[in-house]
């Protein structure tokens, strides 16, 4: 049985890459929390991960996500749709999940290293 290193780790690599992109977008939203008329943006992580890992995705071209606009819970008068509480919650969850993916990759690598060294 041959297990391709790339296949075994590709899902987590895609997830990590998408998580990073999402973190950047959320940080950008937080940075614009006081700018009038700014529209908060985000993307559907699960849909994008399914697309990036699916058969249609070209290998090695990196991930890109189609962005949508956040629908605010309460509209603000200046047209800004950033709600700090929502953005910070999404940001902290996304950070945690990034670290989870990273831990998975690290465990996979250290498992392979153990197998190589034969300790």
């Amino acid at each position, binding site marked *: 049985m041959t297990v391709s290193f790339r296949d075994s780790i590709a899902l987590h690599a895609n997830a990590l890459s998408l998580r990073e992109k999402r973190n*950047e977008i959320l*940080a950008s939203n937080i*940075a614009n929390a*006081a*700018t009038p008329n700014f529209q908060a943006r985000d993307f559907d992580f699960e849909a994008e991960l399914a697309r990036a890992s699916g058969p249609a995705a070209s290998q090695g071209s990196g991930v890109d996500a189609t962005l949508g606009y956040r629908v605010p819970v309460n509209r603000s008068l200046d047209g800004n749709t950033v709600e700090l509480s929502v953005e*910070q919650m999404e*940001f902290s969850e996304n950070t945690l999940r990034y*670290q989870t993916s990273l831990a998975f990759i*690290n465990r996979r690598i250290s498992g392979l290293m153990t197998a190589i060294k034969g300790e």
Partner: protein
Amino acid sequence: MNDIKNVFDVGARAMSAQMVRINTVASNLANAGTVSGSADTAFRALRPVFETEFSNSSDSLATTDVSEIVMLDREPERLFRPDNPLADKDGFVYSAAVNTEEEMVEMTEASRQYQNTLEAMSTLRTLMARTVQMGS
């Protein structure tokens, strides 16, 4: 202006925009008690105008920038102070049009937003540092 290359540029610019806001608040508060001899020369509160700036290279990153600093269109209060050396011929002086409570709220909000951006940047920095050490 340089292009926004990554999320750290976003943070740096957003924080400097908030810093401009805090500076204008400090200037407004410092001038809160001043009086002037005419309504035209009286101090009026300054306020930065924020504007979203989008990155050229990627469609997702956007940061905030101060496009201009405007004087608020408010009438200074007319006070009857005949003993003041600055008073006009009718004995009136014009005090700076600064609302101290409003400035305090503005300062708190700017400082909170500065902290939020800084916190997000420091989290991303930690994540990057951990990613660099992947596999070790």
